[in-house]
C-alpha cells in the first residue's frame, strides 16, 4: 500500500512509465523469457530437431524417453521431441495469426461501431451478439465443413471466435475516447472521420487490445486443441500440439509420453501468454498502480 501513498508525481513519457512498472513484474518477465525461448526453439526446429517430424521408424514404436529419443516415440516411431519442436511452429502460428486476424476485424468493427453510433452501432453490435451467442465450436465445425480440413481453415475458424470480444472491447474504449477533450478539439478543427479514428482514437485503444491479444493467443491454442479433440483440428501427420494430444489420448496409461509432452508444451505456452498478459495489463492500467 505504501507505493500508493508515496507514488512520486514525476512526469515520464508513457512508454518509460510502462517499462518502469513492467520491469517489476517478475512473473510476467519470466513468462516473456519462456515465450521467447519457445519461439526461438520453434523457429530453429529444422536445425535443432534430431529427427524429421513425420519420419516413421517402425522398429522403435512407443518407446519411452531415452537419450536417443528425449521424449520417446509415438505409434509410428516418430520422435516426439522433434515433433514438439516442429509443432511449435504450427501451434504458435495458429495462436498468433488467428488472433491477428480476429483482432483486426474486431478492432475495425469496434472502432466504426463506437465512433458512428446510431444504426451502424446497433447493427454491428447485434451482429456481434449473434456471433457471441452462436457456440464457437459449431461455427468452427461450419467453417471447416465449408472450407475443408487444413491448418489454414482451423486458423480462420478460431479467428472468428475472437472477433466479437475485440469488437466489444474497442467499442467501449472508443465511446470513452470520443468524449475526450483532444478528440473533440480535433473534430472541431475539421479533422475527418477516418483520420480521427486512426490518429486519435485507435492509439488510445491499443493498450487494452495488446493486453487482450496476449491473453487471447493462449485461448486460441487451447481452442485448436479442443477442435482436434472433436476431429476437426490440423489434419495428420501435422505435429500441431493439440493434434498430437488428441491423437495420443487413448494411449493414456499405456504410453504416457505421447500425451504428456505435448500437453506440457501447451500448458507452459498458454500459461506464459496469460501471465505475460496479466503483467502487461497491470503495467498499462493507470488505475491499478
Amino acid at each position, binding site marked *: 500500500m505504501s507505493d*500508493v501513498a508515496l507514488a512520486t508525481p514525476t512526469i515520464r513519457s508513457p512508454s518509460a512509465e510502462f517499462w518502469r512498472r513492467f520491469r517489476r513484474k517478475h512473473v510476467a518477465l519470466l513468462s516473456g523469457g519462456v515465450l521467447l525461448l519457445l519461439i526461438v526453439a520453434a523457429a530453429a526446429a529444422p536445425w535443432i530437431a534430431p529427427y524429421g517430424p513425420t519420419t516413421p521408424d517402425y522398429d522403435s514404436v512407443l518407446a519411452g524417453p531415452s537419450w536417443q529419443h528425449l521424449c520417446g516415440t509415438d505409434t509410428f516411431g516418430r520422435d516426439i521431441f522433434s515433433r514438439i519442436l516442429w509443432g511449435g511452429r504450427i501451434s504458435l502460428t495458429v495462436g498468433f495469426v488467428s488472433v491477428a486476424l480476429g483482432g483486426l476485424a474486431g478492432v475495425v468493427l469496434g472502432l466504426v461501431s463506437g465512433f458512428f453510433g446510431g444504426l451502424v452501432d446497433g447493427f454491428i453490435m447485434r451482429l456481434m451478439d449473434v456471433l457471441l451467442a452462436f457456440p464457437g465450436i459449431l461455427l468452427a465445425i461450419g467453417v471447416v465443413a465449408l472450407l475443408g480440413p487444413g491448418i489454414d481453415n482451423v486458423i480462420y475458424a478460431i479467428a472468428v471466435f475472437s472477433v466479437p470480444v475485440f469488437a466489444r472491447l474497442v467499442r467501449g474504449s472508443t465511446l470513452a475516447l470520443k468524449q475526450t477533450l483532444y478528440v473533440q478539439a480535433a473534430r472541431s478543427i475539421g479533422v475527418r472521420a477516418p483520420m480521427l479514428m486512426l490518429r486519435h482514437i485507435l492509439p488510445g485503444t491499443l493498450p487494452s487490445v495488446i493486453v487482450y491479444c496476449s491473453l487471447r493467443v493462449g485461448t486460441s491454442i487451447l481452442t485448436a486443441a479442443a477442435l482436434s479433440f472433436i476431429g476437426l483440428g490440423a489434419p495428420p501427420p501435422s505435429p500441431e500440439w493439440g493434434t498430437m494430444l488428441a491423437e495420443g489420448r487413448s494411449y493414456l496409461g499405456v504410453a504416457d509420453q505421447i500425451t504428456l509432452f505435448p500437453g506440457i508444451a501447451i*500448458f507452459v505456452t498458454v500459461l506464459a501468454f496469460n501471465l505475460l498478459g496479466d503483467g502487461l495489463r497491470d503495467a498499462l492500467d493507470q488505475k491499478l498502480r
Partner: protein
Amino acid sequence: MIDYLIRRLVGTIPVLLAVSLFVFLFVHLLPGDPARLVAGPDATPQDIAAVRADMGLDRPLVVQYLRYLGQTVQFQLGRSIKTHQTVAELIGERFMPTLLLTVFAMVWSVIGGVAVGVLSGVKRGRWQDQLAMVLAISGISFPGFWLGLLLIDLFSVRLGWLPTGGYESWQSFVLPAFTLGTGVAAVMARFTRSAFVEITAEDYVRTARAKGVPERLVVWKHTLRNALIPVITLTGLQFGFLLGGAIVVETVFAWPGLGRLLVDSVSYRDYPVIQAEILLFSFEFVLINLIVDLLYAVVNPEIRLR
C-alpha cells in the same frame, strides 16, 4: 421499470429472428445430407428417399424456412430427424444435466475464485499474490479434455474414489464440475483481484484507513462488498456461456447435456435440433444480458433504465 422490461424483451425479437435465419441458412449450407446420414451407410436410394420425404426435406428452402418459423412461433419445435423424439422433449431432458453441472461448477469456482482473488488483492505484490495468481491462471491453461482424462485416470481408476462420469449421483458431479469450473475460477480470481485493487485506491477506502478503521473491517465492509458488484456481473455472463453446454467436458465425462447434443446433432445434420438449440442459447444469452443490466440498476440507482 415494467415498461423498460417490455421494451427490452420486444427488442430481442429482431435478434432472435436474425439468429433463426442465420442458423437456418448455416445448417442448410453445411455440406452433408441428413437423409443420407440418417439412413446409414448401407441404405438404398429408396431408404433415403423415404427418410427425405419423412423429414420434409424435399421442399424448397424458402418453404422450409417459413414453415420452421411458423412452427417455432407457436412453440412447435418439430421432431428430431435422428430419434423422432420431439425437440422440446429432447432438449428438456438434456437441459437439467447441463443446468445442474453449470450450477455446481459456478458455485465452487465463484467461491474459490473470489477467495483467491481477495487473498491476492490483500497481499498485492507479495509472494502470496503471485503464487495465487499463477495457480489460478494455471486453471485456464490446461487443455480441458486432457485435464479431464487425467482426473479420471487418477480419481476413478487408480484411487477408485469417484465415478468416471455419467449423470447418476452427487459423486458423479465432482470431476466434471471441477474440470468445467477451473477456467471460470481463474477468470473470477483475476477479476476479483482487479476490482479489489481498484476499489482500495478509491477515496472512501483511503479515508476509512486514514481514520484508523481496522484493516479487516476495511477489507470486509468497505472493499469486498463493492468489489463484488462487477464480480456478480461476470458470474452472470460466465453462467450464460456455460449454459450453452460444455462440449469437451460433457464428452469426456459422458454427461447427457446440451453441448453433446449439439455435437451429435451437427454430425447427423439434425436440423430441427440444431436450430432449436441455437435459438435457446441466444435467448438465454439475451435474457442474461437483460438481468445483468437490471442488476446494474439495482446496485447503482444512478443508472437509469431507458
